[in-house]
């Protein structure tokens, strides 16, 4: 306890909430409020309606939602596979080799995502790989961006893993493949789940690289929100944003439930 006087404590809490509520809680509340209203000219929104949700859950917007979900799930699964493979391989390397792999797989975070988008656009609009105009170019860019996070979290989990389990299994005659399948992966499951949730959330909200790449028939939710607000449809945009936040939270919740079940083992 830093502040002992009752008055001082109340003052500290007052400062906290005066800063915290308008900066962090208000924006999310405002988006939710706007998604239910028809106009906002003045202190408070007016004309309560559920109409924006009707618009946000059919036609173009529904398509954008499925596009985003398919992209995020595919990118997360690919990133998780490649990322954890790389992290597992790196853990077996000598110090120098691990440092090189660490640097390589962290690079996509350090490079601005707009530039990742530009690079993918430049490289895959020309032979030998012609992906421009297809959905795969968006999925590829998302995979690249989230692989770094998958690698980092699996790599961090591996360093915390007690090597005794692996060595005990190996000394009992288990082959490396068997050790990986029956010992290491089950122990890594909670962090793999956490990484999956992180990758999914990042991919759902990805805008920078997507803006550089998306073909007209593969428009994820963030782009949909941008085009809606850009043409002045702020309230529809807010409803779509609430759909984006809601679906991200639902999937994160589901993933965290798997995690708690896995950690009981």
């Amino acid at each position, binding site marked *: *306890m*830093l*502040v*002992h006087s009752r008055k*001082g*404590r109340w003052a500290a*809490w007052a400062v*906290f909430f005066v*800063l*915290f509520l308008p*900066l*962090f*809680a208000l*924006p999310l509340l*405002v*988006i939710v409020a706007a998604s239910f209203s028809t106009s*906002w*000219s003045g202190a408070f929104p007016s004309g309560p309606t559920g109409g924006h949700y009707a618009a946000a859950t059919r036609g173009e917007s529904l398509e954008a939602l499925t596009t985003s979900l398919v992209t995020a799930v595919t990118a997360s699964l690919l990133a998780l596979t*490649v*990322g954890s493979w*790389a992290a*597992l*391989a790196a853990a*077996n*390397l000598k110090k120098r*080799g691990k440092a090189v*792999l660490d640097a390589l*797989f*962290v*690079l*996509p975070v*350090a*490079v*601005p995502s*707009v530039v*990742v988008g530009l*690079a*993918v656009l*430049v*490289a895959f609009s020309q032979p030998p790989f012609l992906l421009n105009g297809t959905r795969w170019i968006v999925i590829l860019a998302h995979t690249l961006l989230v692989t770094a996070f998958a690698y980092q979290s699996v790599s961090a989990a591996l360093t915390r893993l007690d*090597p005794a389990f692996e*060595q005990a299994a*190996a*000394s009992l*005659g288990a*082959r*490396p493949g068997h050790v990986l399948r029956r010992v290491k992966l089950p122990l890594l499951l909670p962090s793999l789940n956490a990484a999956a949730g*992180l990758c999914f959330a990042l991919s*759902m*909200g990805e*805008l*920078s690289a997507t*803006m550089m790449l998306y073909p007209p028939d593969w428009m994820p939710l*963030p782009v949909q929100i*941008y085009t809606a*607000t850009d043409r002045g449809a*702020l309230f529809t945009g807010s409803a779509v944003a609430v759909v984006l*936040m809601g679906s*991200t*939270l639902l999937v994160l919740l589901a993933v965290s439930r798997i995690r708690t079940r896995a950690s009981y083992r």
Partner: protein
Amino acid sequence: MASTVLKPREKAPDIPPPGRARTVPGPLWALPPVALLAVFFLYPLALVVEQSLAPDEGGTSLEPYAEVFASEAFREALGTTVWLAVGSTAGCLVLGFVLALVIAFVPFPGGRAVAKFIDVFLSFPSFLITLALLFIYGTVGMANGLWTDATGAATGPFQFLSTPWGVLLAEVTYFTPFVMRPLLAAFSQLDTAQLEVASSLGARPARIVRRVILPEALPALASGGSLVLVLCLNEFGIVLFTGAKGVTTLPMLVYGKAILESDYPAACVVAVVNIAISVGLYGLYRVVSRRAGA
């Protein structure tokens, strides 16, 4: 007791695991993911560098660089990017420190819920903040509405949204949690007995913060701050949603040159500059955070 527990662990590496000889050696396992990364990430990056050296007239020269560096738009974007990033980082550090301090050392019921809320906040995309600010500080938004209702004036005083200050506010809001998380982790390791001792010796809270808490928090502040600096330099969504013609940052310039103007060599030049700044700073962040043990 301890030695009997430790012994097998020390011994274990000496026992050759059976079947090791017949399996693929370790380094080869690293090849498939590295090959994938090379094809899908390193090769595209190399192409960007190559294109930045290839002017429209053909051949290879540094001419695109000279052209871009000479342009007013680029220099302005570079300046805006740097001051916005530095300003936002400073704001995030101050705000994050104050908020984390209250959560950690002046605990209140619901503090855990607030920490959880911050985690949730981090999983949302950044542009939502700008979207929300449009309703709060927009020309006909909440703040201006309250003002005109109260004073009867025709327009409110909040007209900063389409200026760099609007971007700054959005970035400080969005990135402060990135500072708070490492700070809260660092504070949870701080021995509260130190605070009790200092305060029983008569130190005022301000002095305790300055002499006890701040030195402990410095590594976390440094690593959180440098991460936020890189993220702010590369932020695109917030600037795009602001929709202000007056605010152009390097990522916006890359987007504008490539998608709106189809001037790929120039876009690639800006991209290379952006990569250099951001990878350099990110390397610094990794060094700092490793030293901080975070």
